[in-house]
């Protein structure tokens, strides 16, 4: 048990995975000597050398494309995409190549590639540096998509993702990189299990990544108003751990899904549809969604109004309870 920031926990997880298995490589823009723009790969270049911590040309499609080639040779590459908005040049390599290659080969090939993406807003960044694009990848068969929200999960989930024989999109909540937490020696959950962070009897909040802390703060605030609100950290977006969500919804009858991505065609819509299919008679209110509006991420001066905050989550809890 040790205390680390979320960013340092990913760093420690990468170091552990690289120590355990020579086939694990890190590649990305400025991940070497610099240690990445968020310092998540700090020190790995010095420890493992330039063959295993590769400073790449500035070409996202090539980062993923070469990772596919490395994986075909038996390596387990971990790609860093510097910012969420820079992943789109690699979209074809991820969606048409990485995700589909196993199925296209009739199950002969395996592609153990991890793509790390610092995600979301809240750091006052310029455009294309604050996006939440998990729905694109969750919609693609062949990928696994996970999202860590705290240091303990960050440390264990990055290693679990690297151990997976399938491609994994690994989201890191960039505004939480500097938040400290205790890290246990052993993982308490599997990579695709949701975590129940707080029990409650009136309503369930489901969140992932950067909005988990928002949901927890909202649940604490609701408690002061006399409401008992559960919080589940989804952790895995594809596949979703629906059974954990379903069990909580069956005791409360109310569910609010919180994420930074726009609600239109988003994760919340999938969770709402699935929960409605499976818990139709237990629901006391429609599943509600709190997320971004359907517009490009706004200039930083207004992002506090754009991002789901405690008040907007509380408003949704109120609407659910009033239904």
């Amino acid at each position, binding site marked *: 048990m040790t205390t680390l920031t979320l960013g340092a926990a990913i760093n420690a997880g990468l170091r552990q995975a690289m120590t355990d298995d020579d086939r694990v490589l890190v590649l990305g823009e400025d991940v070497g000597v610099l240690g990445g723009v968020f310092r998540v790969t700090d020190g790995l270049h010095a420890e493992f050398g330039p063959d295993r911590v590769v400073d790449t040309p500035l070409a996202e499609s090539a980062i993923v494309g070469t990772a596919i*080639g490395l994986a075909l040779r038996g390596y387990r590459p971990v790609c860093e995409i510097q910012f969420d908005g820079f992943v789109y040049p690699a979209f074809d390599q991820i969606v048409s190549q990485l995700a589909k290659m196993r199925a296209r080969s009739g199950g002969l*090939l395996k592609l153990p590639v991890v793509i790390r993406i610092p995600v979301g807003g809240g750091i006052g960044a310029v455009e294309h540096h604050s996006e939440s694009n998990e729905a694109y990848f969750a919609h693609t068969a062949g990928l696994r998509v996970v999202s860590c929200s705290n240091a303990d999960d960050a440390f264990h989930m990055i290693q679990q993702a690297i151990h997976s*024989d399938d491609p994994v999109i690994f989201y890191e909540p960039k505004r939480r990189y500097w938040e400290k937490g205790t890290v246990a020696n052993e993982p308490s959950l599997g990579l695709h299990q949701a975590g129940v962070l707080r029990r409650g009897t009136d309503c369930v909040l489901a969140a992932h990544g950067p909005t988990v802390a928002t949901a927890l703060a909202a649940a604490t605030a609701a408690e002061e108003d006399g409401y008992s609100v559960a919080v589940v950290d989804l952790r895995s977006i594809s596949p979703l751990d629906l059974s954990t969500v379903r069990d909580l919804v069956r005791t409360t009858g109310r569910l609010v899904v919180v994420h930074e991505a726009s609600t239109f065609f988003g994760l919340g819509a999938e969770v709402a549809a699935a929960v409605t299919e499976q818990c139709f008679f237990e629901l006391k209110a429609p599943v509600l969604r709190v997320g971004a509006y359907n517009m490009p991420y706004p200039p930083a001066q207004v992002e506090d109004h754009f991002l789901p905050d405690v008040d907007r989550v509380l408003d949704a809890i109120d609407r659910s309870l009033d239904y």
Partner: protein
Amino acid sequence: MHMAPAETPAAAAWGRLLDRQVEDLAMVQFVTPDGALTPAGEEYGVDVDLAQRLHRDMVLARRLDTEALALQRQGELNLWLMSWGQEAAQVGSIRALRQTDMVFPSYREHAAALCRGIAPAELMAQWRGIRHAGWDPSVSRFHIYSLVLGTQTLHATGYAMGAAMERSDEVVAVYFGDGSSSQGDVNEALNWSAAGTLPVLFFCQNNQWAISTPTTTQMRTPLHRRATGFGLDAYHVDGNDVLAVHAVTDVAARRIRAGSGPGLIEAQTYRFGGHSSSDDPQRYRTQADFDLWMGRDPLVRLERLLRTLGVEDDWFKELQEESDAFAVDVRSACKALAGSDLCDLFGNVYAEAHPVLAGEREQHMAFLAALESQGEA
């Protein structure tokens, strides 16, 4: 290990050839369209036994194309993309590599695939709609086809990163066309492999047409000249001259094995057929263009040379008989390819268990069972 080439007369010959390559990028040609040896061809010399083997490869590849197109016209294949006209570029290059060198093809490399021991049925499975890819790349060292153009150049580059790390003397070869040379992925791969001094051999079959768009519309600077700007060793060869292609690929592969970094060969060739069996090249190509290139047919020119060099008529007759028997096998193999079952595909998407796929498979099986019981009722 980085191997220095042996100092043999052939090595000296390829060394001279290479010097000329580096000095100017004139197109290397050993055999003229009418079957005569050029001065470069005379200097390099002809290994008649090798030439006969290459000729056989080309004849069988062309026969596969002819039969497969006929099978498509008969409704036995959904689609076929002929390598007709490009046999020399493919056969000459892949036969100059080692069987252990990994190859990343595009989607028209049937002639190269046959040389790697991939069976006609394995090739046709994709175009009959049975499977997306019909062969095991770990056996043939020939990756599955890439239909999104140029993407495979990056896969080859990554694969070569591994080879370089392991200090292997492998060459990783990747096939692509003039059309895909406009893709970002190809340009990223050229730059990346050069920056990393990686053992990649980029083999561009410039067949003059990206479906209906000629190279004159696609680019201002020929690819082999662009490649030198990226820092690759570049070679320009008559892609319809199998002996020249073989020799140039041999030169390029030796240099790459010796650790000099990536090379690019641009082979000038021509797609005699349409882009695919659905295409109508008469809408965009003139008969004169077709006739010009028909006069440069790679099989015709090698047969002329071989006859000049004294290969007997009987050898050609035996090859024709082998080709006829091969055609019979191609047809029966195609018709024997049985349809796939959707239920089998749920398990191919992920390597590890996945609840969504498991649930959907269960749902689909229940649906089928319900249909069946309704049918019985």
